């Protein structure tokens, strides 16, 4: 049996008296695209943030390709926290894309992308810039190298943010509601782009409200409710024939508000 690329076991997190994650376990195989859906406040974003230790979970383990990040079991069976330095070293295995893009406003687009590989991975600047330019060209952003983020549209910013994460050559990508801060007409542009990325074989975990996108792009869908995995399985099965009553209710509500973005046929 092959080792999963991402293994999350018994992850738990509380904020004061509020329990965000109760006991979350799931696995993601290399090349898989997994969408995490669920009602507001169900812990989706917290889960994603706990996976790369932006938020430190209270319990449980995260393994990327067999390497523990953050907390690891010692030889004596007791849990051991890794040093911040070690966690910093491991984080780049996962690219993180934020809802609000979080580009560095004082740096040019090229610098936003090149800074991580140069500073963190100590790769030669020339090689990194070459790679960054190639990424920008692939993402339809050629010519924007010297622009500052403030001059970009929301969709462009999000593509730069994705390029910044990819430049670190991560093993998998985590997306935290990547289209929620975008204008409706730009959402589709970014979703199509994410689909291309998925088609290129990138392993992706996406927290999203775009059920249509999940249906067409995700291999698997995880439905979170009350800090637990309430249902998971192949996208078509979970979204087409939901078993969990809360999931049924959730899907019904979503369909009432908005028709899902149609991604069945690429626009180009």
């Amino acid at each position, binding site marked *: 049996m092959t080792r999963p690329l991402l293994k999350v076991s018994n992850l738990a997190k509380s904020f004061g008296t509020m329990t965000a994650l109760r006991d979350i376990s799931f696995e993601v195989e290399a090349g898989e695209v997994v969408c995490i859906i669920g009602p507001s406040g169900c812990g989706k974003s917290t889960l994603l943030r706990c996976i*790369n230790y932006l938020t430190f979970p209270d319990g449980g383990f995260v393994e990327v390709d067999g390497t523990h990040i953050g907390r690891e079991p010692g030889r004596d069976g007791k849990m051991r926290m890794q040093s911040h*330095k070690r966690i*910093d070293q*491991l984080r780049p295995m996962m690219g*993180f894309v934020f809802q609000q*893009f*979080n580009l560095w406003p004082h740096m040019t687009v090229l610098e936003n992308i090149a800074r991580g590989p140069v500073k963190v991975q100590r790769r030669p600047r020339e090689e990194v810039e070459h790679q960054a330019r190639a990424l920008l060209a692939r993402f339809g952003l050629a010519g924007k190298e010297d622009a500052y983020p*403030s001059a970009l549209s929301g969709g462009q910013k999000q593509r730069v943010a994705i390029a910044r*994460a990819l430049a670190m050559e991560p093993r998998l990508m985590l997306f935290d509601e990547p289209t929620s801060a975008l204008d409706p007409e730009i959402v589709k542009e970014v979703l199509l782009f994410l689909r291309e990325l998925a088609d290129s074989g990138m392993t992706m975990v996406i927290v999203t409200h775009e059920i249509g996108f999940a249906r067409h792009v995700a291999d698997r869908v995880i439905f979170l409710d009350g800090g637990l995995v309430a249902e998971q399985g192949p996208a078509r099965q979970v979204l087409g024939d939901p078993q969990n009553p809360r999931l049924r209710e959730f899907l019904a509500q979503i369909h009432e508000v908005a028709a899902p973005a149609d991604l069945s046929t690429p626009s180009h």
Partner: protein
Amino acid sequence: MDFDLVAFGDAFPRLLPAALTNLTIALVAMTLALIGGTVLTVLRTTGIGLLTGAIGVLISFIRGTPILVQIFLFYYGLPALGLDLTPIQAGVLAIALNSSIFITEIMRGGLSGMDPGPVEAAIALGVRARTIWTRVILPQLYIRILPPLVNELTTIVKGTALLSVITVVEVLRTAQQIANTTFRPLEALLAAAIVLFALNLAISQLGRRLETRFAARRG
């Protein structure tokens, strides 16, 4: 009114070279104050109780006492502690400390309004805390607080005139010397005011240019 235009005009050739002293003192003090203010700001975020407490006491003392008194304290106090300083050095240090306090307060205000997102993005990429400060937080913060920083520099330039009381020969003291020989204090002092005003006008204009230049890089 008895205003001697000739005495007024004659004051400038002596005041302008003295203005260079004011400008030099101001720039050195501002540089030190920026460094001091930044260090204080970073230290205050560590959350070490004793440290932030001590800084808090220092802040309230500096803010609660006249800068003129602080200048005298440095001028008479530091030599008493065994530090052999020229009046200019003591004055620069006094102004720099005073200004560090105001700058760290400006920086704290700027920090609290800053979007934490870019910092999280850096964390997610594995950037170390130190580099996050120097490459992500501080550059953004300086751009953000540029207008109050320029204002602080003009305050420092005005403060340099206070060093006349500890025998630093700058614009104000030069004007007083001129007045002592010409018996025309009003003319000499007005000329001194105009020279200092011109300095600050130039600084504010420069500040505005910088603001425009960095506008695109603001978050």
